[in-house]
């Protein structure tokens, strides 16, 4: 060795300090940008949520404490939108889970043309969210839309019947769910498929030796083995389904169909910045709760690996 540092311990310490300095340097641009465009805005909206702050009345901005939040708890529209958001979230994620699970089962087998089938399911996922909404809106058109046409041709709908599918906000939710399930099931399928590929075929072989058929193999091998992936995929989907907004704007002008929609309308139609910030913060807090659950699950999964 050409040079010996005074004490090896000190050299290590020096290197550690240099590393930390280097890390700070590398992180600085990202941290600055995120502080600027994320942390500061979200802090600002927390502050505004405690103010009466309407852009249309710039002279009357004042601190009202929890006033916006208390008003929301008494607001009928807000509760309706919460109801519908949960209805949408739970039903669409449940349907995606069931469909995604069975699709993944199919695509996990070996058969001719598997690449084609695996590739084709990515098409809905890749479609623009807005285009997906418009496409289904076109399918649901009374009279000349594909849904009415198919039902008429299959004689499931009498020729003189011509229902308006998107008639009221409650039935709209069901049609929105179908459209959303179509688009996001592939995401679920691909996540579950990745989990299934880790299940060794020998487990099925052993089950088959014990005389297990399809349902028994499913119950005793697939489901227990797949549980960690299922839970992670479901929580991730819940976090994303609960923010539903884009697709609703295509189907209806009624903002009470989701909390995000109502928040958006309060902000950009009426310019109630204080109240919409309070609504946004309630959503944010709820999603942070889900994120914490997600983090715990991720950590547990990586521990068992």
């Amino acid at each position: 060795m050409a040079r010996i540092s005074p004490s090896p311990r000190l050299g290590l310490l020096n290197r550690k300090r240099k590393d930390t300095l280097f890390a700070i340097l590398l992180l600085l641009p990202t941290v600055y940008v995120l502080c600027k465009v994320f942390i500061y805005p979200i802090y600002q909206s927390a502050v505004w949520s405690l103010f009466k702050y309407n852009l249309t009345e710039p002279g009357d901005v004042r601190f009202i404490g929890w006033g916006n939040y208390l008003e929301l708890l008494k607001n009928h529209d807000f509760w309706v939108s919460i109801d519908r958001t949960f209805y949408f979230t739970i039903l669409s994620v449940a349907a995606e889970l069931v469909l995604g699970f069975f699709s993944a089962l199919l695509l996990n087998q070996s058969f001719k043309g598997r690449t084609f089938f695996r590739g084709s399911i990515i098409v809905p996922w890749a479609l623009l969210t807005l285009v997906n909404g418009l496409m289904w809106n076109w399918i649901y058109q009374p009279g000349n839309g594909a849904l009415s046409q198919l039902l008429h041709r299959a004689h499931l709908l009498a020729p003189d019947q011509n229902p308006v599918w998107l008639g009221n906000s409650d039935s709209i939710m069901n049609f929105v769910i179908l459209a959303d399930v179509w688009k996001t099931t592939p995401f679920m399928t691909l996540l579950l498929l990745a989990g299934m590929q880790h299940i060794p075929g020998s487990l099925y072989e052993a089950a088959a030796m014990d005389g297990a058929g399809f349902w028994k193999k499913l119950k005793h091998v697939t489901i227990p083995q797949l549980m960690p992936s299922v839970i992670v995929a479901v929580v991730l989907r819940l976090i994303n389904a609960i923010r539903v907004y884009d697709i609703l704007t295509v189907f209806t002008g009624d903002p009470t169909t989701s909390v995000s929609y109502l928040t958006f309308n309060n902000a950009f139609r009426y310019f109630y910045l204080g109240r919409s910030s309070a609504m946004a913060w309630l959503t944010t807090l709820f999603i942070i709760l889900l994120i914490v659950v997600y983090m715990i699950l991720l950590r547990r999964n990586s521990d068992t690996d």
Partner: protein
Amino acid sequence: MSNTTLRRGIGRRLFRAKPTELIPPFYLWIGLALLCVFTLAPFANLVLSSLMEKQELLSGHLFPKKFTLINYRQLFGGPGALDFVSAIRNSVVVAAVTTAFTILIGVFASYALARIKFRFRSTALFAILAMQLLPTISIVVPLYMMMRDGVTVGIPFTDIVWFRTPPLLNTVWALIVSYITFSLPFAVWMMTGYFKNVPKEMEEAAFVDGSGRFRTMFTIVFPLAMPGIAATSIFTFLTAWDEFMFASSFTQTYASKTLPIAVSEFVGKHSLDWGLMTAAGFIASLPPVLISLFLYRYIVGGLTAGGVKG
């Protein structure tokens, strides 16, 4: 072999699954057929509708009697053509600049988070993941005010400002700045995962040869993680291409409208032209669909790496 045993043999093969698998071939193919119809029929309806004339669409045909490109011709040559083309240009510019900026600064942060041990590292990672999963609605209102007043560069949480941009509403810059709010946390989270997978030994060998951290970062870690960086870029591009809430709140003019906004306006208050809408929707979706099909491996790898928004 008699006829009955042969038939029984075929029956057994059709209705019994291989021991290492679950589903017998007969049910497998029924399932695959259903899956294929469910996935492709709505999309086929979109494509076929875009190839029909108005009269056919209004009379409710599912298959065109006569294929026509009139909707596409009108889209690129009709009265609204300039607006549509400018929407394509805006989408490309916004998605490309967002991706370039995100990767350029995110790649360094990811290296630090994946490779250097320092205090608060896991807290930082948690914050990144949380920011990535939080919805747009959490920050859209303050960002709107920021775009209205112009973005300042200074020290956050203080009044120190070095310079201030002009108001950004109705410019592509408003979208680029706001898209960074979700693309940067996402890209950092994803690339950190990829960088962690680069074997440590390679880097340590370079350290022994006297190469410093800065050099090994460029010569060893980045090249080895290139597929991951590419996958992250693709995802960033696709999410920016798809974004709607920021675009609809920050842009009112064709100077900055992106494709999702332009397409939605074909079926708005002023017109109800399903032929044009389906054609425009098909054109707008073509890049993400083609990218996903050709780069299928990257997309699936990225999706399963975790944290991608559904």
